[in-house]
Structure formats: structure tokens, C-alpha cells
């Protein structure tokens, strides 16, 4: 097996794992805050419907959290098994950031999730609210450290070299590197949207089967209102993130926009098929000069094309298409969230057609998140750490058949897990709030 094949296999395996993993944090970070909201509403109103919604979604949270934990453990090992050169070269930066995630966030989440799930009749109500809040804080802190590391890999800052070793010169600069604030807010908001659409959509699924379920309608409305606020906000945050990328990783933007050549008054390519061999777009649907307007806010501005950065450019087609999937899904989310929020105003029941649309949109957050990560991760190739370490230089000497065999194993395990997860999710949501679910283990002290 030749080296490029090994690289593709190692990347495919890691990409599969990380793509599978992100599904769960993307939901749980936002859902943790929604659960806190449900719990606080119960504390404030004493209305049993809120705690019933809480009990249903805390189960889904626990399941998603467990899926995130087990696939996250896999990732922490694959850094070493698939990319030994990564730790050798930038371990002095990556190591502490990853350890901080475990130390500051992971234990906090895992421990208080136990209290959240099973502690309702063992701790005071106030402490139960506090445990819910601590889990939400933990999930957010976890994302903070991981995104700090990811952003540092995209836009490295605050480092220096000592005896040929790359070390941190200033940890504040390392953590708050140029792309971090944008990536962090974009991802946090994405998680809020993922959770909001999952809650609204799966509650809509319940309403289709049991229109009289008041708790489901209430959960559905909460999700829609959160989405109605976050979806347009995401458009703004995404635009800011894009402008930041234009400044620091212009080749990625050129691939996202399908700009092959540098020119003034660049068009906005709406749809096309990028042809890597010919270095041109086929069947392009364009708006003249709009590209310059979007990127530089000036119709005559010069926009750099991929030719300026060759040969260090990412594969164009996947970045180009994934970007369109993300933006398209995002705009659809704005429309559905607003339509849904209007249709459910003052507790009204939406039409069955709208309920079906919302059900279909349950997974929209996941689709957009995966597409967004494909854009940013494929878009930074061929670099693993921009300007410092190429992906090809981080690969180890694990034999190809080991990679192939374990890849097949992972695919099988993930397929089983994902299928089971989705079945349980739909089943739990469709069944709605089960009064028997209030039972918790009774244990003598």
C-alpha cells in the first residue's frame, strides 16, 4: 500500500469517528441549557408538565451523553494511533488543552449527570437545579477547550520555538487565537439550534400521534421560540466567522466560494460543479459582483482565487458543496422556526402539514453542523496545523491492513449504535411523557 492510500484511510477513519462524535455534543450542549430552562420553569411555576418534559428529555440527554462519551474516548486514543506526528510536533500545546477539557469539564458533567438523573428524591430541589446547571456549564466548558484547540490548529498564535520544540509563549494568546471567538460562538449557537430543532421536531412527531398532549405542545413551542431567535443570529455569526476566515485562511474561503482565479468584481457562485482538473466551475449559476460584495462589502473589490495559493489548496468540490448544504439548511431553519413560532402563538395548535415539516427538520441541526465541520476541516487541508504541520507529516507507520480492519470494525459499531440511538429517540419521543418514568431507585441510607 502506498502512502497516499494510508493517508486517505487514516483520515477516513478519524473523520468517521469525529463526525460520529460531533452529533452528540452538538445536541447535548444546547439540550443541557434547555433542560435547565425546563427545570427552572418547574421550580418557578410548580406546574408538573415542566418536570414531565424535563424527565423525558433528561433521558434523551443521558443517552446522547453516553454516546458522546464513548466516541470521545475513542478520539482521545486515535490522536495517538492515527496521528503520532501530531503530538510529537504540537503536543506541548495540544496536550494541555485536551487535559484541561477532561479536568475542568468532563468530570463535572459525568458526576452531576448522575445526580441529575437519579438524584431527584435524594437531594434537595435547590441542589437538583444546581446539578442541572453544573452539567450545562460542564458541557459548555468542554466545548470551550476543544474549540480552543481546534481554532489554534486553524489559526495558530501565541507560540514560539525553543531548541526546535514548539512551545507556548503566551497561553492567553494560544486559547484566544484569532478564530476562536468566532468559532466558539458559531458552534455554541449551532448546538442551541440542534437541540431546539430536535426538541421541537420530536415533540411535533408526538403531536401528530397525540394532538391532545399539552406537554408536547409546550416543549414544541419552547424549541421553536429558541430556534426563531438563534437561527437568524446564526446567519450573522456565520458571516462574521467567514470574514475572519477570509483574513486568516483565504484559501478555504476561495474553495467555499468556488473562486479559482483572482479578480476584481468577483461573482457570487450560487451553484456549480467545481472541476478540479480544469480548475474551473461547470454549469455555474452566478450573481455578478455579488461575491465581492459579500466578502469585501464593495462590488469592485479584488477577491483572491485558489490559483494564488496553489499547490497548498484543499479539495474544492467537498468544501464547496458542504458549504452550500450548511447555508441552505440554515436558511430553511430560519423559515421553519419563524413559521412554527407564528403558528403556535399563544398556545395554538399548528397544522398537520407544519407538524410534518417540523418532524422532518428534527435532524436539520445535525445536517448543518456536519456540513459546517466538513467545510472547516477539509477546507484547511493540506494543513493539520496551518503553516506548521501538514496532515501527511503527522501519520504514523501503522500497517494498512490494521487500519482497514479496524476501520471496518468501527463502521460496524457506529452503524449499530446510530441505528439503535435513532430508534430509541423516535420511540421515546413518540411515546411522550410517561408518568411511570418518575420512578428513581429507592435506597436506604
Amino acid at each position: 500500500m502506498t502512502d497516499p492510500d494510508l493517508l486517505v484511510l487514516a483520515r477516513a477513519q478519524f473523520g468517521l469517528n469525529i463526525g460520529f462524535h460531533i452529533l452528540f455534543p452538538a445536541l447535548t450542549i444546547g439540550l443541557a441549557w434547555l433542560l435547565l430552562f425546563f427545570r427552572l420553569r418547574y421550580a418557578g411555576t410548580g406546574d408538573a408538565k415542566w418536570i414531565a418534559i424535563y424527565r423525558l428529555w433528561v433521558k434523551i440527554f443521558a443517552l446522547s451523553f453516553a454516546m458522546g462519551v464513548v466516541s470521545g474516548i475513542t478520539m482521545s486514543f486515535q490522536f495517538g494511533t492515527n496521528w503520532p506526528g501530531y503530538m510529537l510536533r504540537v503536543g506541548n500545546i495540544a496536550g494541555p488543552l485536551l487535559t484541561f477539557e477532561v479536568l475542568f469539564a468532563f468530570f463535572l458533567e459525568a458526576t452531576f449527570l448522575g445526580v441529575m438523573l437519579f438524584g431527584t428524591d435524594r437531594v434537595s430541589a435547590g441542589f437538583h437545579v444546581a446539578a442541572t446547571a453544573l452539567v450545562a456549564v460542564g458541557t459548555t466548558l468542554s466545548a470551550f477547550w476543544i474549540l480552543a484547540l481546534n481554532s489554534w490548529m486553524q489559526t495558530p498564535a501565541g507560540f514560539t520555538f525553543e531548541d526546535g520544540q514548539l512551545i507556548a509563549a503566551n497561553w492567553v494568546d494560544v486559547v484566544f487565537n484569532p478564530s476562536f471567538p468566532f468559532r466558539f460562538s458559531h458552534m455554541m449557537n449551532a448546538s442551541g439550534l440542534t437541540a431546539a430543532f430536535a426538541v421541537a421536531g420530536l415533540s411535533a412527531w408526538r403531536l401528530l400521534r397525540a394532538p391532545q398532549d399539552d406537554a408536547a405542545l409546550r416543549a414544541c413551542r419552547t424549541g421553536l421560540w429558541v430556534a426563531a431567535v438563534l437561527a437568524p443570529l446564526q446567519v450573522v455569526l456565520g458571516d462574521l466567522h467567514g470574514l475572519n476566515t477570509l483574513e486568516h485562511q483565504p484559501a478555504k474561503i476561495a474553495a467555499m466560494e468556488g473562486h479559482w482565479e483572482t479578480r476584481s468584481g468577483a461573482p457570487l457562485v450560487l451553484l456549480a460543479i467545481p472541476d478540479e482538473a480544469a480548475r474551473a466551475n461547470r454549469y455555474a449559476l452566478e450573481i455578478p459582483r455579488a461575491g465581492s460584495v459579500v466578502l469585501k462589502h464593495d462590488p469592485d473589490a479584488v477577491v483572491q482565487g485558489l490559483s494564488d495559493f496553489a499547490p497548498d489548496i484543499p479539495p474544492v468540490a467537498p468544501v464547496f458543496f458542504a458549504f452550500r448544504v450548511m447555508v441552505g439548511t440554515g436558511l430553511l431553519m430560519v423559515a421553519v422556526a419563524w413559521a412554527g413560532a407564528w403558528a403556535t402563538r399563544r398556545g395554538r395548535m399548528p397544522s398537520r402539514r407544519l407538524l410534518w415539516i417540523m418532524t422532518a427538520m428534527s435532524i436539520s441541526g445535525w445536517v448543518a453542523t456536519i456540513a459546517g465541520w466538513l467545510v472547516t476541516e477539509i477546507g484547511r487541508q493540506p494543513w493539520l496545523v496551518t503553516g506548521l504541520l501538514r496532515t501527511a507529516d503527522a501519520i504514523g507507520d501503522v500497517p494498512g491492513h490494521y487500519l482497514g480492519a479496524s476501520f471496518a470494525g468501527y463502521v460496524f459499531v457506529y452503524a449499530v449504535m446510530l441505528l439503535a440511538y435513532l430508534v430509541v429517540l423516535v420511540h421515546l419521543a413518540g411515546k411522550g411523557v410517561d408518568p411511570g418514568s418518575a420512578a428513581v431507585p429507592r435506597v436506604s441510607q
Partner: protein
Amino acid sequence: MNVDLPLVFMGLMALAILLYVLLDGFDLGIGMLMPAATRDEQELMVASIGPFWDANETWLVLGVGVLLAAFPAAHGIVLGALYLPVAAMLSGLMLRGVAFELRIKAVGWHRELWNWLFWFGSFLATFAQGWMLGRYVTGFESGFSFWVFSLLCAASLCGTYVLIGAAWLILKTEGELRRKALLWARWGLLWSGLALLLVSIATPLVSARVFARWFDFPRTFGLMLLPAMALAAWTLVWRSTGRLVRARNPRGDWAPLAGAAAIFLIAFLGLAYSLFPYVVIDRLTIWEAAAHPSSLRIVLGGFLVVLPFLIAYTAYAHRVFGGKVRGPLY
């Protein structure tokens, strides 16, 4: 600051791994004991670890996190050499974790399937961990005797996890299940005793390094304290389980767990003594593999800030969920 940072991190990593094998050890042991229990007993067994297993597993992430942060040069070598068993362990842990959540929600044959996967995942993860230990101790050498040795390590870890899982159940359950757990603990004890004995004899035989470290008279006489302590702890568990089986009024249900933990600790110390100061045997010492002091200092700062809170809220969780388990989780 004149602290030997790599040494401190060796200690932290050892602590994380020791806590992992102790804490997730009883989770995995209980997973492997599932087929021996009735359906109602299975619910209680799962309920006894329900609030803890997520946090228990986190110690593994911390252990590998410290390896990666403090000894980046070793991280790639160790995990690269253990590529396949790591993949097997991860698959096992994934199946176990997901089965744990899903078996509670499933009904009918689905539930049986997830029960089976819960057992299988626990077994696969344990077996792979034991195998990795065997490979690691022998410096990843190839050859028939090394494979047999790894197999032996894998089998002994299964027995040891069963022992500590059963000891946990003695503490957390009552009645018929507790009585069964006492018998399981004695079986696990016999098994792990035999296996530990074989591993202790085999290790110096397959590794000249380990032989030299242990058979260095007169130091050897002092070192024999470790096997003596192991024997004492083993006897404590044997006698306490025997006493608890006969006792009418059960008291001291914590003794088997404490004894089992002592066996873990002693075995761990013996292992640490065999390896120190190498992080990859005969190839990399902890000082050669260590990350830059600037990285080690900031991680140590993080540890010092977090560790008190971590210990406090872990202790709190065990207090909240202390006592015997009387009902299923949901």
C-alpha cells in the same frame, strides 16, 4: 521551582490509571457477571453502578490525557504499538456504554440483545486491557511466549475485575443477590490469585529487565514484602467472604471491597517498580519522553486547581448514592 515535573506526572498518570482500573473495574466486572444473574438481579446490578459509570470511565480519558500531555513522545509509540487491542477495547467500551443506556429502554428480545452486548462489551474491553498490559510490560516484543504471556494477562484481568465487581455488589446489595455475589467473589478470588501468581512468575522469565530489578540481592528480601502483602490482602478477602457467607447478621460488607482494592494497589505497585523509570520499556524514560516544562507547569496548575473539587464532588456523589440498592434505575 525545582520540582521533578516528569516524575510528578508519572505519579499523576499512575493515579489516574489506578483509579480507572479500580472504579471502572467493578463496572466491567459486573458487566461480565450479568449472565450469571436472574433478570431482577440484573436490574439491581445495573442500578448499583448507574450513577457512577460515566465518571468512572472518565479516569481512563484522564490517564490517556496525561500520557498525551506529559509524555507526547511515548503517546504515539505506545498507542501505535497497541493499535489493534486499543481498537478492540474502544469497541468494547462503546458497546458496553451504549448497551447500558439502551437495555433500560428496550423491551422483549431487544432487551436480551442489549444485555448480551453489555456482557460482550465488558468482556471485550477487559480482555483487550489485559492484553495491552501484557504487550506493554514485555516492550511489545513478538514471539510465541509473548503472545501466551499476553493471553495470561488478559485472563487474569478478567478474573480480577470479576472479583472487584462482586465485591462491589456485596457492598451495594442484599439478600439473595448479595449471597450470590459472595460466591462470585470467591471464584474471582481463586481465579485472580492463580493468575496473579502465574503472571508474577512469568514476568521475570519473559523480561530480563524485570528479572534484574527483582532479583538483586539483598534488595530482593525487602521487595518480597509486596508479595507478602498481596497474600495478606488475598487472605483477608477469602476470610471475610467466608465469614459473611456464614454470618446471620451481616456486618462489614465493605471488607471484601477494601481487600480487593488492596490487591489491585499491590499489583500496581509491583508493576510500577518493574517499569520505572521507563514509559516505554528499554526505549524511553519518563524524562526523555516528557513534554516541555512550560506545558507541564500549566497542566500541573490545572490539576492543583481542579483536584480538590474533583475529589470533593466525587465523594459527594458516592455519599448521595451510598447504601444498598433496592430498586431498578428507571
